[in-house]
């Protein structure tokens, strides 16, 4: 199950971990990503907290926690290859994994088709 936020983050639940990343639309809008500041393992976030920072040639943008939880792991591949967010934003370019989350918080987020419609309308 993958869901999206209005701010273009995505969450994918896989068993007891939730993968967090940014949508291909967001990656495209930001342009070439040059640096990702990932959260530290064990940090607690609540919905809407600034979780990570993504820097591109155009801008530095905060990435907000789409759901609350504790960081289990940040994507180690992004340190050497931040461009992975451009080449594979919704798969290999995930930013971090959260644990200890409440799956009910997913209800507030958009399904993929709703998100794609939201993009067209905005």
């Amino acid at each position, binding site marked *: 199950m993958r869901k999206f936020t209005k701010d273009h983050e995505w969450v994918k639940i896989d068993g007891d971990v939730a993968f967090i990343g940014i949508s291909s639309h967001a990656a495209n*809008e930001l342009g*070439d990503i*040059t*640096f990702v500041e990932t959260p530290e393992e064990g940090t607690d976030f609540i919905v809407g907290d600034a979780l990570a920072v993504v*820097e591109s*040639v*155009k*801008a530095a*943008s905060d990435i907000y926690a789409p759901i609350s939880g504790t960081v289990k792991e940040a994507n180690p591949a992004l340190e050497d290859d*931040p*461009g992975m967010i451009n080449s594979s934003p919704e798969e290999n370019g995930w930013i971090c994994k959260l644990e200890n989350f409440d799956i009910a918080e997913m209800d507030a987020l958009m399904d993929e088709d709703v998100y794609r419609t939201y993009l067209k309308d905005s």
Partner: protein
Amino acid sequence: MELIFSKGAAGRVGSSLPALDVPNNNSILDSMKRKESAEMPEVSELEAVRHFTLLSRKNIGVDSHFYPLGSCTMKYNPKFHENVASLPGFADLHPLLPQLRRGGALTQGALEVIYETEQMLNEILGFAQFTMQPLAGAHGELTGCMLIAAYHKANGDASRKVMLIPDAAHGTNPASAAVAGFITKEIPSDEEGNVCMKSLKEALGPDVAGIMLTCPNTLGLFDPNTAEICKLVKNAGGLSYCDGANLNAIIGRVKPGDLGFDVMHINLHKTFATPHGGGGPGSGPVGVAPQLVPFLPVSRVAKRADGTYTLEYNHSQSIGYIAPFYGNFSIILRTYAYLVTLGREGVPRISEHAVLNANYIRAKLAPYYDQEYDRYCMHECVFSATRQTKYGVHALDIAKSLIDRGFHPPTMYFPMIVKEALMIEPTETESKEDIDRFIEAMIDIAKESEISPEKIIQAPITTPVKRLDETRAARNPKISE
């Protein structure tokens, strides 16, 4: 472009010195002497002059080019100010002199300049007192945030930790508030480009220390609710901070103090025609309403009853030192010269011409570029290159293409709430002829984007180095040999 090291020949020198005819006082310790000779260019004086003259001709600066960098107010700096700043009575002053015994008597003129500049700024902006100390805009923001924190602490209200910052504010505002210890909360803009009043009202509460409002905002728009916003924040127990980086739009027309702002920083290096950018240094004085005066940094320049000037350090509630000595004095001096030259009649004409020029560009380019907000702008206008992206041309390409046409690029991709933003600030110092030439270049780029976008995408082609790989430079920076 050749490096100076590849010019000249071994042993060549710029000037020949006669042989040493006094005893060689060889007092430098052997351990302190360098082991190898310094690698210096070996060129004649003429070769050195030609090298640096050619280098300087590759600059794009306001002395040579139209420089419409939005949000930066790159106006022309009159040379008269440089003459004033280089007068030996000012230029040769030692910064410690006012603090030495009887030194005060020797620095009356300099202290008077600081004091009088403060008085003029109080009058123009509607504040009780200014500190001239902050050394740049963001330093002024930090000083302002520290004053707000000191105020709440003195009132036993230290739990006010949240600083509200609209999304059309300058990017340094959240950073300054965070450094001062505040938690920042973003307030969105409404569809007109103003602060969303509903979101503001929802955010106000007992935890709010204040709001940092960029006025006019980074969309180049004056928020008609500004006075109302200040009132709402005040009623909720907070203070209102005005980011005055865009003061060029309203100077002499509106007093931010009268709008209800409690604290404001201004940028002398933007609005007051002092050097900017590589030429620096900057200066970001902060003005405050009466209730914040006790917290201002030291030192403060005061006028005694006998008309002489002195420095005061003894203010128990002061936030203390925020800069060495008295701020960037030579910049304050240039500002004094600027204000005295323009006078009461001249100052309002700054904003009058700056706003007229920006709206002239806005109207002339409206048929060729999209605008997110279709309304009069202030001192800068924001376009969006969305129409051009259909042909594969982006804001970056348009900016690069302007270089080939003899113009400094505008600000791009800022403000971030406008897609493919191009932010153009002509300032009041450009003539109509130069503005018309810029408009023609922008129209030419818009037309060429449709017909032969590949030409725009490969710009610049007239510069010593062509299009740089910015992504590679950012991902793999090589910062030393």
